[in-house]
């Protein structure tokens, strides 16, 4: 089963290579050129440096958003009135693309890591806030009543009923949001900083139309995105979370 996607990707690579060889224009570098581009980057020590830079920003922006948005969202979701007050605000902010914040990020934090981290934070924050709010809503009343029936104190209730009841939904939300973070970091690095995979792509184009490096950057971004998603998915296998996910 595991081999099937790999085989499929190989077939696509072969098609890509033959297409490029039969139309040797400047439309796209072939897979072989791209691979050599990745090799180039590795040789100059740039690949590792840029990957680390991007991951560093994603980690901080994502973690900050999670640490603030999840407790806040759970609290807002728990108190109906708070939700009525906050919900319109969240719905207004949420559709604003994080990229629209770029000028403001640069105004506030200048060009550098902080700007990029801020943009990732913005991109993750509202998504996680909504996830946490709706996760609280979706807790069946039965669990809450059982918690009350057994006389739990508020901290015990939060730790032993609320948190485990929302955990699977939060994991789904975190997984989706990490994907968003990875999208935003590339865009942010194209404008707000001088390193990272996003910067690599713009720089490769600006510095001499090195499209092999552009596509190399894209491939690396895709592969790392896949690995991040796999890491998040492995959380779904934790025994005490697994009840919230369909059998697979």
């Amino acid at each position: 089963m595991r081999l099937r996607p790999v085989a499929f990707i190989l077939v696509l690579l072969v098609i890509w290579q033959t297409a490029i060889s039969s139309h040797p224009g400047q439309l796209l570098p072939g897979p072989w050129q791209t691979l050599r581009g990745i090799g180039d980057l590795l040789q100059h020590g740039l690949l590792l440096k840029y990957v680390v830079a991007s991951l560093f920003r994603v980690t901080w922006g994502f973690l900050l958003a999670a640490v603030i948005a999840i407790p806040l969202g759970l609290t807002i979701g728990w108190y109906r009135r708070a939700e009525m007050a906050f919900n319109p605000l969240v719905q207004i902010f949420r559709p604003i693309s994080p990229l629209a914040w770029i000028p403001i990020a640069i105004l506030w934090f200048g060009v550098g890591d902080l700007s990029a981290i801020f943009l990732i934070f913005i991109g993750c924050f509202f998504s996680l806030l909504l996830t946490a709010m709706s996760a609280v809503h979706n807790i069946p009343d039965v669990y809450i009543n059982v918690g009350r029936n057994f006389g739990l104190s508020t901290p015990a209730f939060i730790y032993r009923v609320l948190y485990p009841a929302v955990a699977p939904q939060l994991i789904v939300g975190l997984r989706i949001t990490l994907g968003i973070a990875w999208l935003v970091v590339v865009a942010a690095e194209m404008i707000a900083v001088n390193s990272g995979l996003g910067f690599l792509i713009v720089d490769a184009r600006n510095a001499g139309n090195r499209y092999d490096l552009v596509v190399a950057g894209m491939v690396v971004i895709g592969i790392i995105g896949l690995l991040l998603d796999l890491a998040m998915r492995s959380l779904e296998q934790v025994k005490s979370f697994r009840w919230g996910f369909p059998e697979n």
Partner: protein
Amino acid sequence: MSTQSSPQSAGVKLRVDHVRKAFERDGNSISVLEDINLDVRNGEFICLVGPSGAGKSTLLNVMGGFLSPTSGSVAIDGETVQGPDPRRILVFQERGVFPWLTVEGNIGFGLSNLSDAERKQRIAHYVQLVRLQGFEHSYPSDLSGGMKQRLQVARALAVNPDILYLDEPFGALDSVTRFIMRGELLRIWQTERRTIIFVTHDIDEAVQLADRVVVLSSRPAKIQDILTIDIDHPRNLSSPRYLELRDQLAQKIGLAFSA
């Protein structure tokens, strides 16, 4: 445990006193319970039956402290019920067990104030009582519907409550499992001797289990009749007396529908 029972309420475990319950909906007040009065003796098995939507569950939730009555009061051992309390546990029809805890974790849920050794012992005792040996480390998703309900009963009994409220606990099970579960519940009740209030819409269930069957009328619910089931356990389900009581109950519920 408080034992403030006054002389006149001696032997009465639970007293429902002129309870009314109305819900506000769109500015209208909808009466669900209408002047309910009921005394339940210690160790008694009471079944609440009535047409669906009559307010059986509402009454149970008021008794359990999950809902407060609009007027009147519920008292246990002479002490007015103010809210949910681990001394009286409600068992739900579905989804009552925590899916993120194992069988052991669920039974031990209310036992965090015990020492490890005591908790282990208590869990083992109730695993045995509800016959879930071998499933201690299983999650509810790996249990059948009947096992989940047994688990819920075990978790309730483990905290040593004086009253068990059961809200159509076997309503979501198939009829064979339901039949077996009744036997199990009777066996548990006879070994543990708790006061049980059991909501059901199943006439057979009521006649097989209860000491007394309380028949509620349709909404707003009043107590229409109380039927004493004077047959010893184990009950012979084809004895003339059983069939007679079963018919009587069916008739009373039929009356409830037209009331």
